[in-house]
């Protein structure tokens, strides 16, 4: 059970004839996705371009992305897990209860039609967004879609990919994995990496008020975190590195203005398929890069004497 069956975006462009977007609104949130990778490009093995591809959108409401879809499946909120699990059952020709399926807002016939199309596809792909991963069921929803994809490979080629966004979040994930072994939610306070989402993830630390300082880089939690987390950031010494004024920088004690990566600072950005792209700055900036600021802070910290009290002083305190 579990795992991830995926590919780089060029594989989708060159081969995919059946594309499912689930719990996302790429037309507005990833506006170049259709034209660069999935729908309109003429691929090596899909020379007809858009005509050679079928697109399905699964969502709880009719977003602008529905206009691009050949088939729109509107499901009831919070029923992603049930829909994915029903599809898994139908793929394996297991009996399903029509009454239970009806609670998802779809009929068995409708889903059977999707399964038939999935099996007929030469190369299928499921892109799933935060409507799947951040609603009721969370990682269980993603898990069901990942399993559906894996199991489809007994019939035809099928892959899936989370629709990641938020700047270079994939890059942060990639670097954390090779340096600490874990993708996020890493705690280094014992001197080695520990991983526990829900305990060490940023939102949980902030909401519980566990941390007594914060250094924030390339993110604006002041705009997106739950209010208790934002309140905590305002309470503690918060340092923000950002090219511009943000919700977080307004409540921070220190805001260091940095150059804009990709515009006036070089770097590397990872696509959602974990392919690294070099960033070449077009402009010069009077501000330092994030990397330079962090390096200088690190050197300054390293130059300080160790925080542990000397043995003689400990004796005196005792």
């Amino acid at each position, binding site marked *: *059970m*579990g*795992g*991830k*069956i*995926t*590919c*780089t*975006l*060029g*594989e989708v*462009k*060159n*081969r995919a004839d059946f594309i499912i977007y689930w719990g996302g609104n790429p037309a507005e949130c990833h506006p170049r996705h259709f034209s*660069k*990778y999935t729908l309109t490009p003429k*691929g*090596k093995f899909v020379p007809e371009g858009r005509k050679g591809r079928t697109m399905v959108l699964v969502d709880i409401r009719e977003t602008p992305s529905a206009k691009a879809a050949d088939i729109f499946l509107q499901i009831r909120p919070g029923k992603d897990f049930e829909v994915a699990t029903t599809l898994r059952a139908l793929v394996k020709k297991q009996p399903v209860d029509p009454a239970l399926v009806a609670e998802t807002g779809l009929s068995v016939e409708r889903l059977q039609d999707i399964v038939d199309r999935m099996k007929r596809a*030469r*190369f299928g792909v499921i892109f799933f967004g935060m409507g799947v991963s951040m609603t009721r069921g969370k990682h269980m929803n993603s898990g069901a879609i990942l399993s559906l994809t*894996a199991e489809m*490979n*007994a019939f*035809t*080629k099928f*892959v899936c990919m989370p629709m990641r966004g938020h700047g270079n979040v994939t890059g942060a*994930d*990639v670097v954390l*994995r*090779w*340096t*600490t*072994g*874990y*993708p996020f939610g890493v705690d*280094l306070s*014992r*001197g*080695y*990496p*520990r*991983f526990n989402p829900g305990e060490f993830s940023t939102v949980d630390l902030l909401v519980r008020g566990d941390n007594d300082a914060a250094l924030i880089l390339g993110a604006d939690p002041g705009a997106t975190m739950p209010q208790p987390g934002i309140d905590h950031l305002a309470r503690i010494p918060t340092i923000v590195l950002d090219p511009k004024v943000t919700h977080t920088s307004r409540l921070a004690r220190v805001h260091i203005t940095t150059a804009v990566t990709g515009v006036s600072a070089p770097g*590397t950005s*990872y696509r959602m398929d*974990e*392919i*690294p*792209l*070099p960033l070449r700055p077009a402009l010069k900036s009077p501000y330092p890069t994030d990397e330079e600021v962090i390096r200088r802070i690190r050197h300054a910290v390293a130059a300080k004497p160790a925080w542990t009290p000397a043995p003689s002083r400990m004796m005196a305190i005792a």
Partner: protein
Amino acid sequence: MLRVTGGTVYDPANGVDGLVQDLYIANGRIVDASAIADGARTIDATGMIVMPGGVDVHTHVAGGALNFARGLVPENQRAARKFLHRGDRRAGLGGMTPTTFATGYLYAGMGWTTVNEAAVPVLSARHTHEELHDIPLVDKTSLVLMANNEFVLDLLEAGEAERARHVVSWLVWAAKGYGIKAVNPGGVEAWKWGKNANTLHAPIEGYKTVTPAMIIEGLATIADDLQLPHPVHLHCNNLGVPGNFATTIETMNVLQGHRAHLAHLQFHAYGGDDWTTMRSESARVAEAFTANPTLTADAGAVLFGDAVTITADGPWQHLLYQLTGRKWGNLDVENETGCGIVPYVYKDRNLVNAVQWAVGLELLLLIDDPWRIFLTTDHPNGGCFWRYPEIIHMLMNAEFRREQVQQLPEKARQRIVLADLDREYTLSEVAIITSAGPARSLGLSRKGHLGVGADADITIYPSRPDHGFLFSYPRYVIKGGAIVVEEGDVREVVDGKEFIVRPACDERIEDYIRPLFEKVYTMSFANYPVEIERLRNPEVVVPEP
């Protein structure tokens, strides 16, 4: 400057087999005694064993696939050995898919000082080099995945051998790689439609004339023509499948006369028709291999216990997922290759696993010439590299081996020949399969020996009666002249360098590649080749044409 005095030196490349000799080190190299001033630091190695630092010819320590695996198995990482942040030593985790910094500490801690990352797609090579840079204490090379690259396959289909050579040459330099890797030639390309390539002489999925044999022969020829320091590094078709020894022997026939390195030979030496009749065919594979003197191989030995299988062989991993019902990761890379990941446990009560365990050791014992077969576990596929000392112990001790065989199920014992093999490795032979041999195969002239001019990568082991296990705990490890490990503990952290190859190439080939690239890829052509500035400590090797 440094002196190592009184040690018993095993330097097989220079014909030194257990002589008491002194070594002199200056500017990171081994030098003549006259180049050393009085007062230089001296390590008294009296009674100790001195060998060139280990060289791993086939391992997976960095890159998109391994990093994918790290994210896939957090439960393994939690159980892994912890590395605490201390001084200039970074925090990290050991285990089956160690973090980059820990990888360096673990390799050097065991006495290995050079590693070859064996599978790099050009598209994510930039990422691989970032990770390689973060592996301290060892020098590195990396091999570029070619045998399922559609540019190359299309040219083979069109019969344009010369242009194919230029494209391969361009790709090696674009990836800042060291050589050519071929994984399941044609099979990974077929996997992109959910198929595989099981026979060497049938056209592969999507092509009219290109067969796996053509790809193998084509890439071997190109590697020879380009005079690459390391020949084509081949992961044969039908990895892991019962009865695959026939494919392996047929591959050797296809390669006749060419240089080639056969990776993880253990996974390619099985008889039988299915999982219940699987047996060892190591004797026949060893015989065919010995008869083809232009080939080298590494063992890809299996050890019982946890492993994570990571390979570009996508279709095999789908099969393994269906067999295990465990997690499965798959990552196809546009135009170039694929990759699959399945966590796995080798169990001594399992017939198939017991045969696999025996086959790795049998090949190491049956192939008489230690200069042609090298110690690997195809880390982390057959077991982790930090378990190499366990294998060395078994190679050096026939009695211990037989005791291990006795623990296996009766059914498995009938299908292996390990118990009949009396050979015991000498220390000199161990130095060959762990260092001198792989260095020679990789064409790294300053590695794997202790002659004047060699890089001062030296491992000094305490001498103990149970020779095998001493390899897990060196007394000193010297890397590029710096004493980096003492008493098995990392004392100083130095960066390793990366060896990269710039083969001869007609620059105009870029005009051929660019339009094709723009059609099938999804990034700008200017962003495709890795800039040399990205590598922080490169050493460029230019082959003589």
